[in-house]
């Protein structure tokens, strides 16, 4: 009977470009991809730090580079990415917190997301105000 066993021939599908299959995955990948610009921004700051430690001339060179058109454009892009990060971070937040019960009812995911977003907006504004 083992001959019959061989008739079972499970077919395994490929995972190639799986992330194109569903808009949900595309959104997920975009969220993951924000990291590239986050990393870039961190590196820009790191270079700034290096320049700072090397003295005024070096630092001013770095500042100068920041003032260039392409740099400003790049930072606009980075800003957009950070804003998307902000949104997507709190969108996922309800999944990462233990369930919260208020008066015996589970706190809805949206409430958590919007509270988070609101908090982030406020903190960002405070940072801005302090800096100005």
């Amino acid at each position, binding site marked *: 009977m083992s001959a019959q066993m061989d*008739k*079972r*021939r*499970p*077919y*395994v*599908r490929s*995972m190639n470009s*799986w*992330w194109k*299959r*569903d808009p*949900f*995955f595309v959104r*997920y990948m975009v969220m993951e991809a924000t990291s590239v610009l986050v990393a870039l921004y961190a590196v820009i700051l790191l270079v700034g730090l290096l320049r700072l430690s090397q003295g005024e001339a070096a630092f001013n060179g770095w500042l100068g580079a920041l003032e260039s058109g392409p740099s400003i454009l790049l930072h606009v892009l980075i800003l957009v990415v950070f804003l998307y990060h902000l949104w997507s971070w709190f969108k*996922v937040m*309800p*999944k*990462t*917190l*233990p*369930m919260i*019960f208020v008066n*015996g009812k*589970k706190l809805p995911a949206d409430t958590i997301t919007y509270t988070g977003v609101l908090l982030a907006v406020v903190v960002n504004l405070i940072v801005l105000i302090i800096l100005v």
Partner: protein
Amino acid sequence: MADTTKTIEIEVLRYRPEQDKEPFFQTYTVPFEDDWSVLQGLQYIKDDLDGTLSFRWSCRMAICGSCGMMIDGKPRLACRTFLRHYHPNKLRVGPLEHFPIERDLVVVVEDFIRKLESIKPYIIPKEPRKLEQGEYLQTPAQLEQFRQFSGCINCMLCYAACPQYGLDSKFTGPGVLALMHRYNADSRDGGRGERMALGHSEEGFWGCTAVTYCSEVCPKDVDPANAINQNKMGSAIDYFLRFVAPRGAGK
């Protein structure tokens, strides 16, 4: 029965291991009523057009978990998805993603079952209790801590949704990890320590990258993404606490 005037084209992924080298789409034209589910469409095909089409089903009411399949690319229960939502377009039906295809719309689920068995999905009593002592007391609030996670019908839609499972099937996956959390979170249970070795591993919570599509497709609002990700913080704390207090919490 009402007059049947509408028809819809259903493209079904066929694969018969004894004769087909690889899967292909076959199109059937199905007359339908407005309240027909995709499952009813498939049953029509099986009964009236092509008896060789294989798929799993039983309850027809979204509770037995048999009829999960990809419907226009989304993991769904065929018995709870309605043809009218696709008409007048055609509709594509395929077996659940990320599982090997056994035949037609039937996938091999042994891996899922093995995983389910591996997490000790039963009460390991905190305090043993005799039947004569009656039930354990459990307040509605304590019940709420795990009730949602106990609603899993093992339909595996979340597995078809989770790319991490698709990329590496060693990952225990959303549904089963939610079940693990269900027992850990039950006030009657004291078995968390025994289950967490898996939880702390790469095959456990850490195999998840928080894609969260699993929760999106779950037909029973189990929210497996939450069951997994709310455990990451605890698992991380435990990771570091180990060094401070080697016989620390939860093992």
